[in-house]
């Protein structure tokens, strides 16, 4: 059971990364996991997170397509985007797509936790 009660949805296609993020956050937060954007959408139908940790490059529905849906239906929901592609205008593009913050992999645990705290409401 998390300490703060805040809910975080982790959408990441790499199972190990998803698992590790969960391990690092499960003590403090309530977590759900999805392996792609489509699965993430399905979860959102019944469970409202306070934050979404979102990988951009995923099959079936990638991060940008998810952000597009979120902009229409839940524009206030914060999204922390994670991406492996470090190109000059990549960050700007993801932020323009609606992400609240962008981190470039590999990110350290402290870095991740810092951003999570920053983006969670309250």
């Amino acid at each position, binding site marked *: 059971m998390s300490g703060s009660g805040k809910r975080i949805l982790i959408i990441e296609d790499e199972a*190990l*990364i998803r698992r*590790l993020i969960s*391990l690092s956050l499960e003590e403090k937060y309530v977590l759900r996991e999805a392996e792609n954007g489509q699965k993430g959408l399905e979860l959102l139908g019944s469970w409202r997170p306070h934050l979404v940790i979102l990988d951009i*490059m995923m099959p079936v529905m990638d991060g940008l397509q998810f952000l597009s849906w979120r902009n229409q239906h839940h524009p206030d929901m914060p999204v922390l985007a994670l991406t492996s*592609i*470090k190109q000059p205008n990549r960050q700007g593009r993801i932020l323009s797509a609606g992400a609240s913050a962008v981190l*470039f992999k590999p990110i*350290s*645990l402290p870095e991740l936790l810092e951003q999570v705290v920053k983006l969670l409401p309250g």
Partner: protein
Amino acid sequence: MRNFPYPAILITLVSAIGAWSLNVLGLFDLYDAQVYDMAVRYGSRPPDTPSVLLITANEDELAAGDSTWLDAIETLEALGARQIVFTFTPQHVSSRFYERAVQLGNLVFGRFPQFSVQSDAIDMAPWPPAAQGAEHRLIFGAVVIPPADSGVYRRNHAYYQLGSQNYPILETQAAKQMMGQDQPFPESDYWVDFSGGLDYLPVVALPRLLAGELIPELVRGKSVLIGPALAAHNPGLHTPIDRGGNPGISPLVFQGFALQTLLGQQTVHPMPEGWQLVILLLVSTVNVVLYQLGRYQFGILLTGAAAGVYAVSGWLLPAWFLLWPPVTALVVVQIATFILVSHYKFRVEEATTRRLIMELSGQSHEKRQIPGFYTDAEPWAQVVNFVKQTLDLSWLIFLERLPGQYYVKEIIALNCSLADIDERRRDYRRLPYSEAMAENRLVRLQKRLFLRLNVDYEQYLTPLVFGGEVLGFWVMGLPAGKNTHVPEFFSIVNEFSVQIAEMIYHRQQWLQQQKIDKIHDVFLYLRLKGGENFHGTLKQNIAVYQRRLLGLEQIFDSIGIAAVFYNPFGSVIQVNHTMEELMKKEHILIYQITALDLLCLLCQLPMADSQRILRQVFTDHKATTLPAHLPDNPRYHYLLHVRPVVINPQQLEAGEVAPFQLRGILIELVDVTSLHDLSVMKSGFMEHIYFQLRNDLQTILLAADLLNSGDQPASNDVLDMLKQQVDDAIRLVDQAQDYLFKDLIELQQIEDSYPVELLEAIHATLDAASDQIKERQLKIEARLPELVSLVLAEPNLLRELLKMLLTILIDDAITGSTLSITMIEQEQTITCTLSNQGFGMPNSRFQDYLTGSVDDLTPAFKKLRTGIRQMTQWSGELTGASTLGEGICFELKLRCFI
């Protein structure tokens, strides 16, 4: 003249002064006289009314006394004669006659010069006794007929020099008396004007005068000339107006014409010698220029026309301007100038041709190809070498069959010779030749032809046939069974034998022609083609150079790289075929743009940068390579090489200027699209590797951080994850390194699968088909992710497959409909679905086309069927379905690489 810098001046002076000198020396007088005679005979100007009347008297009348002559002068005076001129001095008249003559004051008498016994010298004939006392008051003139010019009397004296006395000739005296001393009269010999013709001057016999038969109109105001008629035995004086067969005119008529010439002021003067020289120099100068303008035929025409002009001037000038031009001298100058100029030009041309031939022969290090090829061993040696290498032969010989002979002759051999064939087996009428001819193909010899070859070698013989005629044979030997090592050995031998037969044919033709030419050498002299034949040699050398130039042009045209050659000023000299076709497709007018324009257009460079680059080429002779694109086809990638072609200073002609020492600038456009695509493919692959590694590192980093945080329950799991991730990363690197370390050039030949970007392949295929899509007005609905995993596929085959799929869908689609493309990545497989709205076909038939045994297929379906089989090697799968009236749908499944 050869070394004189201005030979034109020399020619002008030589011809003009030469002709003038000959004219002054009188060498042309005869010819001038003949022209004058023609001009007089066919006078261009109508004569004036004559002012002279001739009265003829016979011998008896000449010796008559007062009754005749006094009567005559009284009658003439009464009729109004202005002047009475006696060409003699009446001897038998009284002093009353001479007194009357003095009284009248208009009588003039003619006195002959004769030898005086008293003075022992030529003197004027004395006056008759009847004239004594009056002789100083009587007017007289000397009667002297000048000598003829080559038998023709054309001129008359004006004065007669006798000792220290200068007596006016009778006609001169008469003219002065009649017209007054103030009038200008010739001081020297003058040309008598005969243009009126033989019947011009009226002639009346004396008895008619004495009988009063003359009308006043005939006599009034005239000068009446009285003299002896032409005696019957006297041939008379021949003049320009002689009619053929008729006798000449009498001296009286001659004197009458002379008097008329003076009275009518019609004395024709020859052009002064000084003016003659000036005219001749002028004519020569003008013609020296004119003769240089045209060729020999023009010169002849000009000469003829000029001669005509001079003849016309000789006809017109005397009649209208009383001036006689040096006609013959003018014609001679004209011809001399023509000859000298033509001769000089001919010598210069011949010298130039000789020098050119020598230079060409010196520069050309190879023999003339046509004769050399057929007689020199080297070209045949090249053929033998080529054949030997291609077919891997050990022995071979080309034999020639000569007309009229039964034994074959060797053309060339390798590792053998004709001596290796028994003499009895060189008769082509016998085996094995007869068998080969009968079968007209390559035959394997059962009995050895080459004596030195042992049984381990197989021997073959094929006839060499051209135009249905057997021209020779080709015999070859190779180790037993080796013919199977060369694929299609027999068909290659057959093709070669056709070519070699043609070569033998041309060789025989040439040899035959040589024999004919040798026989005809004698006749060459009759045709004035004997001896040294510069033009033939020059023509052959030029033909060699033309062939070489043509060959080089063809090579330039045939190279696969697009190339254009500019002169040092950036204007096009030569464009090869590849460049021409490429520019035509791009609607670029390559012949009308400069090198600078091309650089700006293809490299998308600003003008300043292009200028800088070309400057470096000009001044530093620096070659440059730039990336380039076609304006309408950005998909294709090129490298533009700009290279200076530098001149070797020793190659320059004297006086030739080569700016920047450049022959020109060569621009080559090298298509590197495939290399670029391969590079992009590798980059894309690298990007994916990088992406995956970052993910893997993310896992490792998170795991390490977690372990570091000291969370014991999770540590075992985390360690396991760490190990797994490290294993995954190592596996990825191992998988990737084989592909990454492949050379790009090697990749071009790749026929195995390679990690490729499917998205990029689809986009490229859509671009390539854009024209067809536009033509059919199709809409493309592509639901494609931004990034998908790489797939394992053979790159070229994948593109080809996609192209065929699109072709089939476009061909089947209804105009204006939609083509859909979707892509989904799931469970290590990417599925790409392509469908159309089209006519479709029954699905069973569609499946037969795809994977069945139906042979009647379109090329696209044929390639597709082949591709479907091949793609299974990379675990790829292509399926499709069709519904009649709805369209076709394809599903392409490919395995993800990572």
